C-alpha cells in the first residue's frame, strides 16, 4: 500500500463517521468531469463521443466547487476528457486543495510537462497526478491508438516526480493483456519513482465503441491472479489490497455504485461512472431517486453481470476494510506482508 497515512486516516475516519451517523449510502470519491474534450481518442473510451458543441463546453470552476461541497466526499478524481485541456485546471485544483480534498488528476500526461513548466500546479499532499498508462510502450500506444504517447507520458511523470509531486499511474486492462508484460510494466513504473499504481479491468458498456475487448469476469480473475500473485516487494498499489484480491477472485463484493458518484455538465450521473442511465439535478436527488437495487451483480441486471470495475467495487472494498474486523485483518495482513 502506498497511500500516505494522513490520507488513509482521513478516509478511515470519514467512513467510520458516516457509519456512526447511520448513513447507509455515502460517497468516497467524487468523479468530477469538467469537460469531455480530449487530445486522444482511445478505442476503449466511451467518454469522448459527443457532438462538437458538447466537446467545446466545460463546467465553470464554481460549478465544480459547488458539486464537491454538495457531495462531501473526501477525495475527488478529475478525469474527463483530458483535464489538462480544461482552461482553469490550475484554479480548480487550488480551490479543491484549499478545501483539503485529496485530488487525483487523471491525465494522459501529453500536456503534463508543459503545464508543470508553466507552474500551473504547486506540489501538495492533497494533489496526485494519476497518469493513464495501460502497459509497456507498445501496449500503451496500441491502447490509446497513437504511437509515441507512452514516451510523452514518461517524460511528464519524470518531470512531476522531479518537482516533488505525488504521481500514480492508472491502468485499464483489456482482454489480451499479457500478465508477464504487465509485471515488466509495474517494474518500469516503480523505477520512474511513482508513489503507487492503480489497475482496473475494462468493462463493456454500451457507449464505448470497442465492445469486443473488454474482460469477462472469469478471464479477469485469471489475468489479475497471474499478474499479481507473488507481487514484487518494490511494487506499490495506490488502492485497497482487498480490491486487488477481489480482482484476483479471492474476495467477493457487491457493487457500491454510489461510492464513486460522477458529476459533469449533464448533472449527477445515474447510477455510476460507466452506465449513463440518466442524470439528477442535485446530489440529494441522485441518492434519493436512483433505483439502486436495479444495479450490481445480484440485481440480475445484464449490464452489471460481469462488471468488476474500480468505480463500483473499490468503495465496497474500502467499506469492508473499515467496517469489519475481517476486512481490517485481511487488509492489514496484505499491507504488512506485501502478499495479495
Amino acid at each position: 500500500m502506498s497511500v500516505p497515512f494522513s490520507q488513509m486516516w482521513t478516509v478511515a475516519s470519514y467512513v467510520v463517521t458516516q457509519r456512526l451517523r447511520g448513513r447507509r449510502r455515502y460517497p468516497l470519491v467524487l468523479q468530477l468531469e469538467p469537460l469531455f474534450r480530449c487530445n486522444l481518442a482511445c478505442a476503449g473510451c466511451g467518454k469522448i463521443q459527443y457532438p462538437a458543441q458538447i466537446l467545446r463546453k466545460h463546467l465553470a470552476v464554481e460549478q465544480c466547487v459547488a458539486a464537491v461541497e454538495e457531495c462531501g466526499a473526501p477525495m475527488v478524481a478529475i478525469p474527463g476528457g483530458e483535464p489538462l485541456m480544461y482552461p482553469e485546471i490550475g484554479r480548480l485544483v487550488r480551490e479543491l486543495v484549499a478545501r483539503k480534498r485529496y485530488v487525483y488528476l487523471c491525465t494522459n500526461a501529453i500536456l503534463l510537462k508543459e503545464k508543470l513548466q508553466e507552474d500551473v500546479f504547486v506540489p501538495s499532499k492533497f494533489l496526485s497526478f494519476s497518469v493513464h498508462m495501460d502497459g509497456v510502450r507498445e501496449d500503451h500506444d496500441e491502447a490509446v491508438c497513437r504511437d509515441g504517447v507512452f514516451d510523452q507520458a514518461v517524460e511528464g511523470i519524470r518531470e512531476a516526480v522531479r518537482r516533488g509531486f505525488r504521481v500514480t499511474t492508472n491502468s485499464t486492462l483489456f482482454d489480451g493483456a499479457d500478465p508477464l508484460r504487465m509485471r515488466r510494466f509495474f517494474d518500469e513504473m516503480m523505477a520512474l519513482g511513482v508513489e503507487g499504481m492503480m489497475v482496473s479491468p475494462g468493462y463493456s458498456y454500451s457507449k464505448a465503441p470497442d465492445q469486443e475487448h473488454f474482460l469477462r469476469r472469469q478471464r479477469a480473475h485469471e489475468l489479475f491472479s497471474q499478474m499479481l500473485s507473488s507481487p514484487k516487494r518494490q511494487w506499490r498499489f495506490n488502492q485497497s489490497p482487498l480490491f486487488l484480491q477481489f480482482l484476483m477472485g479471492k474476495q467477493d463484493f457487491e457493487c457500491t455504485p454510489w461510492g464513486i458518484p460522477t458529476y459533469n455538465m449533464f448533472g449527477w450521473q445515474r447510477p455510476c461512472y460507466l452506465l449513463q442511465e440518466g442524470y439528477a439535478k442535485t446530489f440529494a436527488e441522485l441518492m434519493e431517486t436512483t433505483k439502486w437495487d436495479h444495479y450490481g451483480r445480484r440485481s440480475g441486471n445484464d449490464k452489471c453481470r460481469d462488471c468488476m470495475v474500480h468505480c463500483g467495487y473499490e468503495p465496497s472494498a474500502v467499506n469492508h476494510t473499515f467496517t469489519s474486523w475481517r476486512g481490517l485483518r485481511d487488509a492489514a495482513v496484505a499491507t504488512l506482508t506485501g502478499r495479495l
Partner: protein
Amino acid sequence: MPKEAALEGFTPQIGTEVTLEQLVERAFDYRGNVTVIRRDGSSVEGYLFNRNRDVADPFVEMFDKDGHGPLTILYGDIRTIRFTGKDTAAGNSYAAWLRAKEAAKKASVPPAADA
C-alpha cells in the same frame, strides 16, 4: 425501428413505427444531434442528454446546436424526433484502428526488389 448503427438520418412516425417512449430512449442513447419537433411545429436541434419518465410530467433535456441549455421539453409536447446529426460513436472501434494500423504498416514497408 432500425438498429443503432442505422439511426442516422432516420425520421420515424410515432404511433405506427414506434412509441414516443421508445423513440425518446433511442434518442437518449444516440451519440449525435437529434431534432425534436414539437406539436406546435417548432423544433430544436441538439444533443439530447437526459430524459425522466419517473415524474408527473416526463421530460427530456438537451443542449442545442450552439451548446446553450439545458433546455427542457415535455414528452407531451413532442411530435417526433429525427436523428439528424452524425453518430459520433459509429466506426470508432478498436478493431477498425488495428486494421488501419496494419494497413499503414504494410504501406510503409518497401516492396521487395525484383531479383
